[in-house]
């Protein structure tokens, strides 16, 4: 056991000195390797953090939402449905919700208008999110102009601006009173945008949804789990697309690594020849190359992960936000919560270190099988 340890230790020693002796080439490789790890890690961390945020958000979302459909499109739902739905066994509460989208041509942005459940917004007033305030340059007490669906101009005073911490949820949010909402959108009385249901027992969700779909064939029930799944899918898919695109970079890197491993300089070849001639066998030289590769891989992995961590969690992944968050004018400015788990690191490892190692197996072997007597002849 001790011999094995000493052997490895000595060879690692030589591998380190060997790497340091050829700094130029190795630094180039290290930099490219680190960049590849950095790019992939940024994508993976970012997607993971977004999914987590979405999950946290949806924690407070209603268990089920019932929407009315007209010719396959979402339409306001009669509040009267709510009473019948509330009678279904398993449903513990029904809440009609009033919300909608308002397009503001002045800045080209879509606001989400919402009547809060507690009806806390005073008449002719609005509470706006920080993103809206930022884009329209509004502060408390200012007036916001809206154009209602029946052509009138409506002026509402900004009562409060939502705190910055709520950016992710509320950047484009405008909280409004019920009467103002109905006036703005010419929204008929007795109708709601959709119905939010509370179902205590999660196992019953599917059954309740089936019953609703049965009793009200013009509605569609949407489960929270479906929403979560859809968000996950989208983020995963986007992450996957990014990884595929980065796959081109990864391939280039692998070719570079393979080329570098194959293209040994005359000096390096001579050195291996010398090692073989003084008593190192092929297995020892292979071990040397393996340890050199391992040292480079681990360093690149370490630096790449740290850089990606800083990039994603301190700079909000400014390089990758657009393809990953989707496009729009109002971007919530928020700090992602750092969460890195061993699983992501394992995935990263498989995407970077494993291809690098495999790419260098054959060139390393070729280098290691130099004839020991060739050194005598040179």
């Amino acid at each position, binding site marked *: 056991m001790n011999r094995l340890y000493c*052997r490895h*230790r000595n060879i690692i020693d030589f591998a380190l000195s060997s790497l340091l002796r050829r700094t130029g080439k190795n630094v180039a490789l290290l930099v490219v390797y680190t960049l590849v790890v950095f790019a992939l890690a940024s994508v993976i961390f970012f997607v993971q953090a977004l999914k987590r945020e979405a999950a946290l958000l949806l924690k407070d979302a209603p268990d089920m939402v019932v929407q009315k459909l007209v010719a396959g499109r979402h339409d306001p739902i009669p509040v009267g449905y709510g009473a019948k739905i509330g009678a279904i066994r398993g449903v513990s509460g029904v809440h009609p919700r009033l919300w909608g989208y308002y397009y503001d041509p002045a800045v080209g942005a879509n606001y989400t208008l919402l009547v809060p459940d507690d009806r806390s917004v005073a008449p002719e007033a609005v509470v706006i999110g920080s993103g809206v305030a930022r884009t329209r340059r509004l502060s408390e007490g200012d007036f916001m102009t809206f154009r209602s669906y029946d052509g009138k101009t409506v002026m509402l005073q900004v009562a409060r601006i939502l705190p910055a911490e709520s950016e992710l949820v509320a950047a484009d949010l405008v909280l409004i009173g019920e009467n103002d909402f109905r006036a703005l959108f010419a929204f008929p009385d007795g109708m709601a945008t959709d119905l939010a249901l509370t179902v205590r027992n999660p196992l019953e969700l599917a059954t309740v949804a089936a019953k609703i779909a049965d009793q009200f064939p013009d509605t569609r029930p949407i489960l929270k789990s479906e929403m979560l799944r859809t968000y996950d899918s989208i983020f995963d898919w986007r992450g996957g697309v990014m990884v595929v695109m980065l796959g081109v970079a990864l391939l280039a890197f692998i070719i570079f690594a393979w080329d570098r491993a194959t293209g040994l300089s005359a000096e390096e070849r001579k050195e291996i020849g010398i090692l073989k*001639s003084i*008593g190192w066998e092929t297995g020892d030289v292979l071990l040397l190359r393996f340890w050199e590769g391992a040292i480079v891989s681990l360093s690149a992995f370490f630096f790449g992960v740290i850089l990606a961590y800083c990039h994603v969690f301190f700079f909000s992944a400014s390089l990758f936000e657009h393809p990953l968050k989707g496009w729009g004018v109002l971007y919530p400015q928020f700090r992602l919560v750092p969460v890195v788990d061993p699983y992501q690191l394992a995935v990263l490892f498989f995407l970077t270190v494993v291809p690098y190692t495999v790419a260098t197996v054959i060139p390393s072997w070729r280098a290691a099988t130099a004839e020991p007597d060739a050194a005598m002849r*040179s």
Partner: protein
Amino acid sequence: MIELARVTKRFNAGRANEFTAVRDVSLTVARGGVTVLKGPSGSGKTTLLTLIGCMSRPTSGRVVLRGIRTEAVPAADGDGIEISGLPERFLTGIRRSTFGFIFQQFNLVRGITVLENVMLPAYPTGEAYGAVRTRALDLLERFGITRHASARIDLLSGGELQRVAIARALINEPAVIIADEPTAHLDSALSRDFMAIVGSFKAAGRTILIASHDPIVFESPLADAVVEMRDGGVIHGGSAA
């Protein structure tokens, strides 16, 4: 003792540039003595050295080592190990522990210190670093080059380089020393110094094999046997098959 029986080494067999370096050589290298291989360049001396020193395998023929103890290979017939058919792993194992090489071009690794160069052959054996280092320093002292221990080899003179090469050859305490044209880069004074060192090896009981066309070597009183080679064959001094 090393026995070669009808050993042939052929390169690039079957191709246009086929070349027979050693042709049907039978030879016995006595134990504890100095054997010199003499002959012009291209006569196959270097190739023969590699065959004797377990550095390559003969295309045909047998090479048998007698009187060498090694844990890996049990003695086959009598005391001898036939190395011609051994896999590289065992060949290298035997070579590492039994033979020490001094190359014509010294073959030292540039960019690392003299001390590390001397210790290099012992790295893969799994011996503790500390023990090897002590031995290396002792060897450097024995040849008077301790002051260069941390120097890079680029700064050393020809004579000093050769002494580093000799120290390296001795690091694994081999029973046989093999030197290929050791005096090629040395002046007469240093060549005579070298032969003095060879004398000390002989006194210590080691077997020495030298390939040289330098008269200082093959006409030295230390040489117990001189084998003359030409065109891959032994013309004088070999043994019957």
